[in-house]
Protein backbone atom coordinates (compact mmCIF):
# COMPACT_ATOMS: atom_id res chain seq x y z
CA UNK A 1 0.00 0.00 0.00
CA UNK A 2 2.89 2.38 0.65
CA UNK A 3 3.92 2.29 -3.01
CA UNK A 4 0.36 3.03 -4.07
CA UNK A 5 0.23 5.97 -1.69
CA UNK A 6 3.52 7.22 -3.12
CA UNK A 7 2.14 7.01 -6.64
CA UNK A 8 -1.14 8.74 -5.84
CA UNK A 9 0.47 11.45 -3.74
CA UNK A 10 -0.63 14.67 -5.49
CA UNK A 11 2.85 16.12 -5.84
CA UNK A 12 4.07 12.86 -7.31
CA UNK A 13 1.05 12.76 -9.59
CA UNK A 14 1.22 16.34 -10.84
CA UNK A 15 4.91 17.15 -10.73
CA UNK A 16 7.37 14.30 -10.30
CA UNK A 17 5.89 11.65 -12.60
CA UNK A 18 5.25 13.97 -15.54
CA UNK A 19 8.80 15.29 -15.29
CA UNK A 20 10.27 11.79 -15.11
CA UNK A 21 8.15 10.54 -18.00
CA UNK A 22 8.87 13.61 -20.08
CA UNK A 23 12.59 13.22 -19.44
CA UNK A 24 12.50 9.64 -20.71
CA UNK A 25 10.59 10.65 -23.85
CA UNK A 26 13.00 13.55 -24.30
CA UNK A 27 16.03 11.28 -24.03
CA UNK A 28 14.56 8.83 -26.55
CA UNK A 29 13.82 11.57 -29.07
CA UNK A 30 17.08 13.45 -28.61
CA UNK A 31 18.93 10.16 -28.97
CA UNK A 32 17.22 9.66 -32.31
CA UNK A 33 18.00 13.25 -33.33
CA UNK A 34 21.68 12.90 -32.44
CA UNK A 35 21.96 9.61 -34.27
CA UNK A 36 20.14 11.04 -37.29
CA UNK A 37 22.82 13.70 -37.70
CA UNK A 38 25.34 11.00 -38.51
CA UNK A 39 22.98 8.56 -40.24
CA UNK A 40 21.66 11.20 -42.63
CA UNK A 41 25.11 12.32 -43.73
CA UNK A 42 26.37 8.79 -44.17
CA UNK A 43 23.28 7.71 -46.09
CA UNK A 44 23.27 10.81 -48.29
CA UNK A 45 26.90 9.98 -49.05
CA UNK A 46 25.96 6.47 -50.09
CA UNK A 47 23.02 7.72 -52.18
CA UNK A 48 25.34 10.10 -53.99
CA UNK A 49 28.11 7.51 -54.47
CA UNK A 50 30.59 9.06 -52.02
CA UNK A 51 31.71 8.17 -48.53
CA UNK A 52 30.28 10.74 -46.13
CA UNK A 53 31.74 11.31 -42.66
CA UNK A 54 33.47 8.01 -41.95
CA UNK A 55 36.57 8.76 -39.91
CA UNK A 56 35.92 11.17 -37.03
CA UNK A 57 36.93 9.42 -33.82
CA UNK A 58 38.90 6.64 -35.51
CA UNK A 59 42.03 7.82 -33.61
CA UNK A 60 40.45 6.89 -30.29
CA UNK A 61 38.89 3.71 -31.59
CA UNK A 62 35.33 4.83 -32.43
CA UNK A 63 34.30 2.96 -35.59
CA UNK A 64 32.50 4.20 -38.73
CA UNK A 65 32.96 7.86 -37.99
CA UNK A 66 30.52 7.75 -35.09
CA UNK A 67 32.62 10.44 -33.39
CA UNK A 68 30.78 12.87 -35.68
CA UNK A 69 27.79 12.66 -33.32
CA UNK A 70 29.88 14.30 -30.57
CA UNK A 71 32.06 16.43 -32.81
CA UNK A 72 29.19 18.36 -34.38
CA UNK A 73 27.64 19.76 -31.17
CA UNK A 74 31.11 20.62 -29.87
CA UNK A 75 31.80 22.51 -33.08
CA UNK A 76 28.52 24.41 -32.78
CA UNK A 77 29.29 25.33 -29.17
CA UNK A 78 32.79 26.61 -29.90
CA UNK A 79 32.07 28.61 -33.07
CA UNK A 80 31.89 32.37 -33.00
CA UNK A 81 28.37 33.67 -32.47
CA UNK A 82 27.84 36.48 -34.97
CA UNK A 83 24.84 38.78 -34.47
CA UNK A 84 24.09 41.21 -37.32
CA UNK A 85 24.27 44.74 -35.91
CA UNK A 86 21.13 45.90 -37.74
CA UNK A 87 19.00 42.97 -36.61
CA UNK A 88 15.89 43.28 -34.47
CA UNK A 89 17.50 41.90 -31.32
CA UNK A 90 14.57 40.45 -29.37
CA UNK A 91 13.03 38.67 -32.35
CA UNK A 92 16.47 37.56 -33.52
CA UNK A 93 17.18 35.77 -30.23
CA UNK A 94 13.63 34.48 -29.93
CA UNK A 95 13.65 32.96 -33.42
CA UNK A 96 15.69 29.80 -32.80
CA UNK A 97 14.26 29.18 -29.32
CA UNK A 98 10.55 29.50 -30.09
CA UNK A 99 10.12 26.39 -32.30
CA UNK A 100 11.85 24.20 -29.69
CA UNK A 101 8.99 24.68 -27.23
CA UNK A 102 6.12 23.12 -29.27
CA UNK A 103 8.53 20.50 -30.62
CA UNK A 104 9.22 19.32 -27.07
CA UNK A 105 5.66 19.71 -25.75
CA UNK A 106 4.35 17.34 -28.40
CA UNK A 107 6.46 14.49 -27.00
CA UNK A 108 4.26 14.50 -23.90
CA UNK A 109 1.30 13.49 -26.04
CA UNK A 110 2.76 10.62 -28.05
CA UNK A 111 2.13 7.07 -26.79
CA UNK A 112 5.53 5.44 -27.15
CA UNK A 113 4.39 2.19 -25.58
CA UNK A 114 1.35 0.39 -24.15
CA UNK A 115 -0.58 2.52 -21.62
CA UNK A 116 0.26 1.60 -18.02
CA UNK A 117 4.02 1.92 -18.45
CA UNK A 118 6.16 5.01 -18.40
CA UNK A 119 5.76 5.93 -22.02
CA UNK A 120 2.59 8.00 -22.13
CA UNK A 121 3.07 11.23 -20.27
CA UNK A 122 -0.37 12.61 -20.69
CA UNK A 123 -3.52 11.31 -22.30
CA UNK A 124 -5.61 14.25 -23.43
CA UNK A 125 -9.16 14.03 -24.73
CA UNK A 126 -8.27 16.15 -27.76
CA UNK A 127 -4.79 14.63 -28.13
CA UNK A 128 -4.41 14.66 -31.89
CA UNK A 129 -5.93 18.12 -32.27
CA UNK A 130 -3.51 19.45 -29.66
CA UNK A 131 -0.58 17.89 -31.50
CA UNK A 132 -1.73 19.56 -34.73
CA UNK A 133 -2.12 22.87 -32.91
CA UNK A 134 1.34 22.61 -31.40
CA UNK A 135 3.05 21.64 -34.64
CA UNK A 136 1.40 24.56 -36.39
CA UNK A 137 3.17 27.03 -34.08
CA UNK A 138 6.63 25.86 -35.15
CA UNK A 139 6.51 28.24 -38.11
CA UNK A 140 6.91 31.31 -35.86
CA UNK A 141 10.58 30.62 -35.27
CA UNK A 142 11.25 30.59 -38.99
CA UNK A 143 9.17 33.70 -39.73
CA UNK A 144 10.71 35.64 -36.86
CA UNK A 145 14.25 34.57 -37.67
CA UNK A 146 13.78 35.52 -41.32
CA UNK A 147 12.30 38.89 -40.48
CA UNK A 148 14.65 39.84 -37.63
CA UNK A 149 17.87 39.16 -39.56
CA UNK A 150 17.26 42.27 -41.67
CA UNK A 151 18.44 40.49 -44.79
CA UNK A 152 16.39 40.22 -47.96
CA UNK A 153 17.21 36.56 -48.50
CA UNK A 154 16.17 35.76 -44.95
CA UNK A 155 12.98 37.75 -45.39
CA UNK A 156 12.15 35.87 -48.60
CA UNK A 157 12.78 32.59 -46.78
CA UNK A 158 10.48 33.64 -43.95
CA UNK A 159 7.74 34.73 -46.37
CA UNK A 160 7.94 31.51 -48.35
CA UNK A 161 7.88 29.50 -45.17
CA UNK A 162 4.79 31.29 -43.86
CA UNK A 163 2.86 30.70 -47.10
CA UNK A 164 4.03 27.09 -47.38
CA UNK A 165 3.26 26.15 -43.78
CA UNK A 166 -0.22 27.68 -43.81
CA UNK A 167 -1.00 25.99 -47.13
CA UNK A 168 0.17 22.53 -46.17
CA UNK A 169 -1.43 22.66 -42.74
CA UNK A 170 -4.74 22.10 -44.54
CA UNK A 171 -4.02 18.78 -46.33
CA UNK A 172 -2.03 17.70 -43.26
CA UNK A 173 -5.12 18.11 -41.09
CA UNK A 174 -7.58 16.81 -43.68
CA UNK A 175 -5.65 13.61 -44.29
CA UNK A 176 -6.03 12.71 -40.62
CA UNK A 177 -9.81 13.14 -40.70
CA UNK A 178 -10.38 9.85 -42.53
CA UNK A 179 -8.40 8.02 -39.86
CA UNK A 180 -10.39 9.73 -37.13
CA UNK A 181 -13.68 8.74 -38.78
CA UNK A 182 -12.68 5.09 -38.88
CA UNK A 183 -11.23 4.96 -35.36
CA UNK A 184 -13.86 7.27 -33.88
CA UNK A 185 -11.50 8.95 -31.46
CA UNK A 186 -9.02 11.81 -31.21
CA UNK A 187 -6.81 9.89 -28.77
CA UNK A 188 -3.75 8.32 -30.33
CA UNK A 189 -4.01 5.36 -27.95
CA UNK A 190 -7.53 4.59 -29.14
CA UNK A 191 -6.45 4.84 -32.76
CA UNK A 192 -3.63 2.36 -32.15
CA UNK A 193 -6.03 -0.04 -30.42
CA UNK A 194 -8.40 0.22 -33.38
CA UNK A 195 -5.54 -0.73 -35.67
CA UNK A 196 -4.74 -3.71 -33.46
CA UNK A 197 -8.34 -4.90 -33.65
CA UNK A 198 -8.60 -4.32 -37.41
CA UNK A 199 -5.90 -3.66 -39.96
CA UNK A 200 -3.13 -1.10 -39.89
CA UNK A 201 -4.64 2.17 -40.96
CA UNK A 202 -2.51 2.64 -44.07
CA UNK A 203 -4.42 -0.17 -45.79
CA UNK A 204 -7.92 1.36 -45.67
CA UNK A 205 -6.49 4.90 -45.74
CA UNK A 206 -3.72 4.54 -48.31
CA UNK A 207 -4.64 7.84 -49.99
CA UNK A 208 -4.58 9.66 -46.67
CA UNK A 209 -1.24 8.06 -45.85
CA UNK A 210 0.22 9.35 -49.12
CA UNK A 211 -1.13 12.87 -48.52
CA UNK A 212 0.17 12.80 -44.96
CA UNK A 213 3.69 11.86 -46.05
CA UNK A 214 3.80 14.62 -48.68
CA UNK A 215 2.37 17.26 -46.35
CA UNK A 216 4.68 16.19 -43.55
CA UNK A 217 7.71 16.72 -45.79
CA UNK A 218 6.38 20.16 -46.67
CA UNK A 219 5.74 21.07 -43.02
CA UNK A 220 9.34 20.20 -42.17
CA UNK A 221 10.86 22.15 -45.10
CA UNK A 222 12.57 18.97 -46.25
CA UNK A 223 14.11 18.76 -49.66
CA UNK A 224 11.42 18.57 -52.30
CA UNK A 225 9.82 21.43 -50.35
CA UNK A 226 12.86 23.20 -48.88
CA UNK A 227 12.06 26.51 -50.56
CA UNK A 228 12.47 28.55 -47.34
CA UNK A 229 16.15 27.60 -47.29
CA UNK A 230 16.78 26.93 -50.98
CA UNK A 231 20.54 27.37 -51.15
CA UNK A 232 20.68 27.99 -54.90
CA UNK A 233 18.19 30.85 -54.68
CA UNK A 234 18.28 32.33 -51.19
CA UNK A 235 21.83 31.64 -49.88
CA UNK A 236 20.51 29.72 -46.86
CA UNK A 237 17.05 31.25 -46.55
CA UNK A 238 15.77 32.12 -43.12
CA UNK A 239 18.92 31.04 -41.27
CA UNK A 240 21.41 32.89 -43.47
CA UNK A 241 22.38 35.21 -40.62
CA UNK A 242 22.43 32.58 -37.91
CA UNK A 243 25.60 30.94 -36.72
CA UNK A 244 26.93 28.65 -34.00
CA UNK A 245 24.44 27.48 -31.37
CA UNK A 246 21.49 29.48 -32.74
CA UNK A 247 21.84 27.68 -36.06
CA UNK A 248 22.11 24.40 -34.12
CA UNK A 249 18.82 25.22 -32.39
CA UNK A 250 17.11 25.57 -35.76
CA UNK A 251 18.50 22.19 -36.80
CA UNK A 252 17.47 20.68 -33.47
CA UNK A 253 13.88 21.85 -33.81
CA UNK A 254 13.71 20.69 -37.43
CA UNK A 255 14.90 17.20 -36.55
CA UNK A 256 12.70 17.07 -33.46
CA UNK A 257 9.71 17.91 -35.62
CA UNK A 258 10.77 15.20 -38.05
CA UNK A 259 10.76 12.70 -35.18
CA UNK A 260 7.37 14.01 -34.05
CA UNK A 261 5.92 13.59 -37.53
CA UNK A 262 7.35 10.08 -37.80
CA UNK A 263 5.81 9.24 -34.41
CA UNK A 264 2.51 10.57 -35.74
CA UNK A 265 2.64 8.55 -38.94
CA UNK A 266 3.60 5.42 -37.01
CA UNK A 267 0.78 5.75 -34.53
CA UNK A 268 -1.80 6.93 -37.09
CA UNK A 269 -1.11 4.64 -40.02
CA UNK A 270 1.32 1.92 -38.98
CA UNK A 271 -0.01 0.52 -35.74
CA UNK A 272 2.09 2.23 -33.06
CA UNK A 273 3.61 -0.30 -30.68
CA UNK A 274 1.66 -3.23 -32.16
CA UNK A 275 2.88 -5.73 -34.70
CA UNK A 276 0.94 -6.72 -37.80
CA UNK A 277 -1.25 -9.83 -38.13
CA UNK A 278 -2.47 -9.98 -34.55
CA UNK A 279 0.94 -9.02 -33.23
CA UNK A 280 2.50 -12.52 -33.50
CA UNK A 281 1.42 -13.10 -29.92
CA UNK A 282 2.68 -9.66 -28.80
CA UNK A 283 -0.72 -8.00 -28.40
CA UNK A 284 -1.25 -5.00 -26.16
CA UNK A 285 -2.81 -7.23 -23.51
CA UNK A 286 0.24 -9.52 -23.46
CA UNK A 287 2.64 -6.57 -23.36
CA UNK A 288 0.63 -5.08 -20.50
CA UNK A 289 0.90 -8.36 -18.62
CA UNK A 290 4.68 -8.23 -18.77
CA UNK A 291 4.73 -4.90 -16.98
CA UNK A 292 7.86 -2.80 -17.42
CA UNK A 293 9.49 -5.31 -19.78
CA UNK A 294 6.43 -5.24 -22.03
CA UNK A 295 6.47 -1.46 -22.00
CA UNK A 296 10.11 -1.43 -23.02
CA UNK A 297 9.43 -3.94 -25.79
CA UNK A 298 6.50 -1.86 -27.07
CA UNK A 299 8.66 1.25 -27.03
CA UNK A 300 11.39 -0.61 -28.90
CA UNK A 301 8.93 -1.62 -31.64
CA UNK A 302 7.65 1.96 -31.83
CA UNK A 303 11.11 3.48 -32.06
CA UNK A 304 12.14 0.96 -34.73
CA UNK A 305 9.20 2.00 -36.88
CA UNK A 306 9.99 5.67 -36.27
CA UNK A 307 13.57 5.11 -37.42
CA UNK A 308 12.28 3.43 -40.58
CA UNK A 309 10.30 6.53 -41.44
CA UNK A 310 13.25 8.76 -40.66
CA UNK A 311 15.09 6.79 -43.33
CA UNK A 312 12.18 7.46 -45.70
CA UNK A 313 12.75 11.18 -45.05
CA UNK A 314 16.40 10.83 -46.07
CA UNK A 315 15.48 8.71 -49.08
CA UNK A 316 13.02 11.40 -50.21
CA UNK A 317 15.65 14.07 -49.73
CA UNK A 318 18.17 12.18 -51.84
CA UNK A 319 15.67 11.41 -54.60
CA UNK A 320 13.50 14.39 -55.45
CA UNK A 321 14.51 17.76 -56.92
CA UNK A 322 13.12 20.95 -55.42
CA UNK A 323 9.73 22.36 -56.49
CA UNK A 324 9.25 25.80 -57.97
CA UNK A 325 7.11 27.97 -55.69
CA UNK A 326 4.01 28.06 -57.91
CA UNK A 327 4.30 24.29 -58.42
CA UNK A 328 4.39 23.91 -54.66
CA UNK A 329 1.21 25.94 -54.24
CA UNK A 330 -0.50 24.07 -57.10
CA UNK A 331 0.37 20.72 -55.56
CA UNK A 332 -1.00 21.78 -52.19
CA UNK A 333 -4.18 23.58 -53.19
CA UNK A 334 -5.17 21.95 -56.47
CA UNK A 335 -4.11 18.36 -55.90
CA UNK A 336 -3.65 17.40 -52.25
CA UNK A 337 -6.62 19.27 -50.77
CA UNK A 338 -9.22 18.00 -53.31
CA UNK A 339 -7.75 14.51 -52.96
CA UNK A 340 -8.02 14.69 -49.17
CA UNK A 341 -11.61 15.93 -49.41
CA UNK A 342 -12.50 13.10 -51.79
CA UNK A 343 -10.91 10.65 -49.36
CA UNK A 344 -13.01 12.03 -46.51
CA UNK A 345 -16.14 11.79 -48.67
CA UNK A 346 -15.54 8.14 -49.61
CA UNK A 347 -14.58 7.21 -46.06
CA UNK A 348 -17.69 8.92 -44.77
CA UNK A 349 -19.94 6.96 -47.13
CA UNK A 350 -18.24 3.69 -46.19
CA UNK A 351 -18.45 4.38 -42.45
CA UNK A 352 -22.11 5.34 -42.75
CA UNK A 353 -23.11 2.42 -44.97
CA UNK A 354 -21.05 -0.10 -43.04
CA UNK A 355 -18.53 -2.46 -44.59
CA UNK A 356 -15.21 -0.91 -43.69
CA UNK A 357 -13.57 -3.97 -45.22
CA UNK A 358 -14.36 -2.42 -48.63
CA UNK A 359 -11.81 0.28 -47.92
CA UNK A 360 -9.28 -2.37 -46.89
CA UNK A 361 -9.88 -4.29 -50.12
CA UNK A 362 -9.41 -1.07 -52.05
CA UNK A 363 -6.23 -0.29 -50.15
CA UNK A 364 -4.76 -3.76 -50.69
CA UNK A 365 -5.65 -3.51 -54.40
CA UNK A 366 -3.85 -0.17 -54.67
CA UNK A 367 -0.77 -1.51 -52.89
CA UNK A 368 -0.69 -4.65 -55.07
CA UNK A 369 -1.11 -2.54 -58.22
CA UNK A 370 1.75 -0.26 -57.19
CA UNK A 371 4.01 -3.22 -56.34
CA UNK A 372 3.20 -4.92 -59.67
CA UNK A 373 3.86 -1.64 -61.49
CA UNK A 374 7.23 -1.29 -59.78
CA UNK A 375 8.24 -4.94 -60.33
CA UNK A 376 7.51 -4.88 -64.07
CA UNK A 377 10.34 -5.40 -66.53
CA UNK A 378 12.00 -2.08 -67.29
CA UNK A 379 11.51 -1.05 -70.89
CA UNK A 380 14.57 -0.72 -73.02
CA UNK A 381 15.31 3.01 -73.16
CA UNK A 382 17.33 4.04 -76.16
CA UNK A 383 20.36 6.23 -75.54
CA UNK A 384 19.01 8.86 -77.87
CA UNK A 385 15.82 9.42 -75.87
CA UNK A 386 17.74 9.53 -72.61
CA UNK A 387 19.97 12.32 -73.79
CA UNK A 388 17.34 14.39 -75.50
CA UNK A 389 16.61 17.40 -73.32
CA UNK A 390 13.62 19.72 -73.68
CA UNK A 391 15.95 22.66 -74.27
CA UNK A 392 17.60 21.17 -77.36
CA UNK A 393 14.21 20.15 -78.74
CA UNK A 394 12.99 23.70 -78.54
Amino acid at each position, binding site marked *: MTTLAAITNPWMHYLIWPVVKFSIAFIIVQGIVAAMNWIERRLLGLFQARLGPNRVGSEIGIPWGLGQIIADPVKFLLKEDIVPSSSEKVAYYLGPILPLVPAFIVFCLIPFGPPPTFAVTSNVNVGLLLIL*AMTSTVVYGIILGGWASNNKYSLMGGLRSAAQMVSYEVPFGLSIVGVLMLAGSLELEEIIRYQERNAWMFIPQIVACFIFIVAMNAENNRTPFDLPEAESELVAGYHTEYSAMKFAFYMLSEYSMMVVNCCLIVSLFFGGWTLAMGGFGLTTAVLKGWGLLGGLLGTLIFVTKVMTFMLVYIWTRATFPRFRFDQLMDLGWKFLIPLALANIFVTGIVVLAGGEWLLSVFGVAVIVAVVVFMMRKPEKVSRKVMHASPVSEA
Partner: protein
Amino acid sequence: MDELTQGMPLVVFLIIGTIAVASSILVVAMRNPVHSALFLLLTFLCVAVLFVIREAEFVAAVQVLVYAGGIMVLFLFVVMLINVRHLPEERVMSRFWKGGFAVGLGIFILFAALVRPGVYHDPNPNTKELRTVRTYRMRNVRQADGTVIRKRVARPRVVGNSEAVGMMLYRDYLVPFEVISLFLLVAMIGAIIIGKRELSADEEETTPAFILERTETEREVKESFSA
Protein backbone atom coordinates in the same frame (compact mmCIF):
# COMPACT_ATOMS: atom_id res chain seq x y z
CA MET B 1 -5.13 14.88 -4.07
CA ASP B 2 -8.24 16.93 -3.39
CA GLU B 3 -6.62 20.06 -1.99
CA LEU B 4 -4.30 20.31 -4.94
CA THR B 5 -6.94 19.72 -7.63
CA GLN B 6 -9.24 22.22 -5.91
CA GLY B 7 -6.69 24.95 -5.46
CA MET B 8 -4.70 24.51 -8.65
CA PRO B 9 -7.18 25.97 -11.20
CA LEU B 10 -7.46 29.21 -9.24
CA VAL B 11 -3.68 29.59 -9.04
CA VAL B 12 -3.35 28.86 -12.76
CA PHE B 13 -6.18 31.29 -13.53
CA LEU B 14 -4.52 34.09 -11.56
CA ILE B 15 -1.12 33.60 -13.16
CA ILE B 16 -2.34 33.07 -16.71
CA GLY B 17 -4.98 35.81 -16.45
CA THR B 18 -2.35 38.30 -15.31
CA ILE B 19 -0.11 37.34 -18.23
CA ALA B 20 -3.04 37.65 -20.64
CA VAL B 21 -3.98 41.15 -19.46
CA ALA B 22 -0.35 42.33 -19.40
CA SER B 23 0.39 41.06 -22.88
CA SER B 24 -2.84 42.47 -24.29
CA ILE B 25 -1.85 45.88 -22.93
CA LEU B 26 1.50 45.45 -24.67
CA VAL B 27 -0.31 44.58 -27.94
CA VAL B 28 -1.77 48.08 -27.87
CA ALA B 29 1.36 49.77 -26.57
CA MET B 30 4.02 48.31 -28.87
CA ARG B 31 5.19 50.55 -31.71
CA ASN B 32 6.29 47.72 -33.99
CA PRO B 33 3.44 45.54 -35.40
CA VAL B 34 5.63 42.40 -35.21
CA HIS B 35 6.03 42.83 -31.47
CA SER B 36 2.30 43.51 -31.18
CA ALA B 37 1.61 40.30 -33.08
CA LEU B 38 3.88 38.30 -30.76
CA PHE B 39 2.16 39.61 -27.66
CA LEU B 40 -1.22 38.93 -29.25
CA LEU B 41 -0.06 35.35 -29.83
CA LEU B 42 0.85 35.11 -26.14
CA THR B 43 -2.61 36.44 -25.20
CA PHE B 44 -4.31 33.84 -27.41
CA LEU B 45 -2.29 31.00 -25.88
CA CYS B 46 -3.16 32.23 -22.37
CA VAL B 47 -6.84 32.38 -23.29
CA ALA B 48 -6.59 28.79 -24.56
CA VAL B 49 -5.30 27.74 -21.13
CA LEU B 50 -8.24 29.56 -19.51
CA PHE B 51 -10.59 27.56 -21.78
CA VAL B 52 -9.01 24.32 -20.56
CA ILE B 53 -9.76 25.28 -16.96
CA ARG B 54 -13.39 25.74 -18.00
CA GLU B 55 -13.44 22.20 -19.45
CA ALA B 56 -13.65 23.38 -23.04
CA GLU B 57 -10.71 21.38 -24.37
CA PHE B 58 -11.97 21.29 -27.92
CA VAL B 59 -12.44 25.05 -28.14
CA ALA B 60 -8.98 25.51 -26.61
CA ALA B 61 -7.39 23.27 -29.24
CA VAL B 62 -9.29 25.04 -32.03
CA GLN B 63 -8.23 28.38 -30.57
CA VAL B 64 -4.54 27.44 -30.76
CA LEU B 65 -4.95 25.77 -34.16
CA VAL B 66 -6.81 28.62 -35.86
CA TYR B 67 -5.50 31.71 -34.09
CA ALA B 68 -1.90 30.67 -33.49
CA GLY B 69 -1.52 28.41 -36.51
CA GLY B 70 -3.45 30.45 -39.06
CA ILE B 71 -4.49 34.00 -38.27
CA MET B 72 -1.33 35.21 -36.55
CA VAL B 73 0.86 33.68 -39.27
CA LEU B 74 -1.24 35.62 -41.78
CA PHE B 75 -0.71 38.82 -39.79
CA LEU B 76 3.05 38.30 -39.65
CA PHE B 77 3.04 37.48 -43.36
CA VAL B 78 1.37 40.79 -44.18
CA VAL B 79 3.62 42.72 -41.80
CA MET B 80 6.64 41.24 -43.54
CA LEU B 81 5.17 41.84 -47.00
CA ILE B 82 4.66 45.51 -46.20
CA ASN B 83 8.07 45.60 -44.48
CA VAL B 84 7.30 47.98 -41.65
CA ARG B 85 10.86 49.10 -41.17
CA HIS B 86 10.69 51.25 -44.27
CA LEU B 87 7.54 53.07 -43.23
CA PRO B 88 7.90 56.63 -41.98
CA GLU B 89 8.09 56.94 -38.21
CA GLU B 90 4.51 57.34 -37.17
CA ARG B 91 3.05 58.72 -34.05
CA VAL B 92 1.66 55.80 -32.04
CA MET B 93 -1.46 57.60 -30.94
CA SER B 94 -4.15 59.09 -33.11
CA ARG B 95 -5.75 62.46 -32.50
CA PHE B 96 -8.56 60.79 -30.61
CA TRP B 97 -6.43 59.24 -27.88
CA LYS B 98 -8.17 61.05 -25.02
CA GLY B 99 -11.57 60.02 -26.33
CA GLY B 100 -10.29 56.48 -26.93
CA PHE B 101 -9.15 56.01 -23.36
CA ALA B 102 -12.40 57.54 -22.10
CA VAL B 103 -14.51 55.14 -24.19
CA GLY B 104 -12.40 52.16 -23.07
CA LEU B 105 -12.65 53.13 -19.44
CA GLY B 106 -16.40 53.76 -19.80
CA ILE B 107 -17.02 50.35 -21.37
CA PHE B 108 -14.90 48.69 -18.70
CA ILE B 109 -16.79 50.41 -15.88
CA LEU B 110 -20.09 49.48 -17.52
CA PHE B 111 -19.11 45.82 -17.81
CA ALA B 112 -17.62 45.78 -14.31
CA ALA B 113 -20.86 47.20 -12.91
CA LEU B 114 -22.81 44.47 -14.70
CA VAL B 115 -20.64 41.56 -13.55
CA ARG B 116 -19.66 42.83 -10.10
CA PRO B 117 -18.99 39.98 -7.63
CA GLY B 118 -22.10 38.30 -6.33
CA VAL B 119 -24.30 38.79 -9.38
CA TYR B 120 -23.69 35.38 -10.93
CA HIS B 121 -23.77 32.79 -8.20
CA ASP B 122 -22.05 29.62 -9.29
CA PRO B 123 -24.55 26.88 -8.54
CA ASN B 124 -21.80 24.23 -8.72
CA PRO B 125 -22.73 23.30 -12.28
CA ASN B 126 -23.07 19.76 -13.49
CA THR B 127 -20.01 19.75 -15.72
CA LYS B 128 -20.72 16.21 -16.89
CA GLU B 129 -23.22 17.88 -19.20
CA LEU B 130 -20.29 19.33 -21.16
CA ARG B 131 -19.15 15.82 -22.06
CA THR B 132 -22.55 14.27 -22.72
CA VAL B 133 -23.82 13.08 -26.06
CA ARG B 134 -27.58 12.52 -26.39
CA THR B 135 -28.84 9.92 -28.81
CA TYR B 136 -32.55 9.99 -29.60
CA ARG B 137 -34.67 6.89 -30.04
CA MET B 138 -38.36 6.25 -30.61
CA ARG B 139 -39.59 4.34 -27.60
CA ASN B 140 -42.89 3.12 -26.17
CA VAL B 141 -43.42 5.15 -23.04
CA ARG B 142 -46.05 4.28 -20.43
CA GLN B 143 -47.88 7.40 -19.37
CA ALA B 144 -49.10 8.05 -15.85
CA ASP B 145 -52.66 7.05 -16.78
CA GLY B 146 -51.54 3.71 -18.12
CA THR B 147 -51.71 4.44 -21.87
CA VAL B 148 -48.67 3.64 -23.96
CA ILE B 149 -47.53 6.18 -26.56
CA ARG B 150 -44.56 6.29 -28.92
CA LYS B 151 -42.21 9.10 -28.07
CA ARG B 152 -38.70 10.36 -28.77
CA VAL B 153 -36.52 9.56 -25.79
CA ALA B 154 -33.07 10.97 -25.21
CA ARG B 155 -30.40 8.63 -23.94
CA PRO B 156 -27.46 10.54 -22.47
CA ARG B 157 -23.99 9.03 -22.70
CA VAL B 158 -20.91 10.56 -21.08
CA VAL B 159 -18.01 10.71 -23.52
CA GLY B 160 -15.31 13.30 -24.23
CA ASN B 161 -15.74 17.01 -24.75
CA SER B 162 -14.67 16.84 -28.40
CA GLU B 163 -17.23 14.16 -29.23
CA ALA B 164 -19.99 16.07 -27.45
CA VAL B 165 -19.12 19.30 -29.29
CA GLY B 166 -18.98 17.42 -32.58
CA MET B 167 -22.42 15.85 -32.11
CA MET B 168 -23.89 19.19 -31.12
CA LEU B 169 -22.24 21.02 -34.02
CA TYR B 170 -23.27 18.57 -36.72
CA ARG B 171 -26.76 17.75 -35.48
CA ASP B 172 -28.34 20.58 -33.52
CA TYR B 173 -26.37 23.39 -35.19
CA LEU B 174 -26.06 21.99 -38.69
CA VAL B 175 -27.62 24.97 -40.50
CA PRO B 176 -25.50 27.62 -38.71
CA PHE B 177 -22.49 25.43 -39.43
CA GLU B 178 -23.29 25.40 -43.14
CA VAL B 179 -23.86 29.15 -43.10
CA ILE B 180 -20.44 29.59 -41.50
CA SER B 181 -18.81 27.43 -44.15
CA LEU B 182 -20.49 29.53 -46.86
CA PHE B 183 -19.29 32.66 -45.07
CA LEU B 184 -15.73 31.34 -45.07
CA LEU B 185 -15.96 30.59 -48.80
CA VAL B 186 -17.21 34.11 -49.49
CA ALA B 187 -14.46 35.57 -47.30
CA MET B 188 -11.85 33.52 -49.15
CA ILE B 189 -13.04 34.64 -52.60
CA GLY B 190 -13.30 38.22 -51.36
CA ALA B 191 -9.78 38.20 -49.94
CA ILE B 192 -8.35 36.78 -53.16
CA ILE B 193 -10.18 39.29 -55.37
CA ILE B 194 -9.31 42.27 -53.18
CA GLY B 195 -5.71 41.29 -52.65
CA LYS B 196 -4.85 40.74 -56.33
CA ARG B 197 -2.49 43.12 -58.02
CA GLU B 198 -2.79 44.30 -61.61
CA LEU B 199 0.46 43.90 -63.52
CA SER B 200 1.88 47.02 -65.14
CA ALA B 201 2.75 46.99 -68.85
CA ASP B 202 6.43 46.92 -67.94
CA GLU B 203 6.03 43.86 -65.79
CA GLU B 204 3.93 42.07 -68.33
CA GLU B 205 6.86 41.89 -70.71
CA THR B 206 9.21 40.32 -68.20
CA THR B 207 6.93 37.90 -66.39
CA PRO B 208 6.96 34.24 -67.42
CA ALA B 209 4.02 32.84 -69.40
CA PHE B 210 2.48 30.78 -66.60
CA ILE B 211 1.98 33.88 -64.43
CA LEU B 212 0.48 35.81 -67.35
CA GLU B 213 -1.99 33.02 -68.00
CA ARG B 214 -3.01 33.24 -64.40
CA THR B 215 -3.51 36.98 -64.32
CA GLU B 216 -5.56 36.67 -67.50
CA THR B 217 -7.94 34.21 -65.84
CA GLU B 218 -8.09 36.33 -62.73
CA ARG B 219 -8.95 39.40 -64.76
CA GLU B 220 -11.78 37.50 -66.40
CA VAL B 221 -13.06 36.44 -62.99
CA LYS B 222 -12.86 40.00 -61.77
CA GLU B 223 -14.69 41.36 -64.80
CA SER B 224 -17.44 38.81 -64.43
CA PHE B 225 -17.78 39.95 -60.84
CA SER B 226 -17.96 43.63 -61.63
CA ALA B 227 -20.28 43.08 -64.60
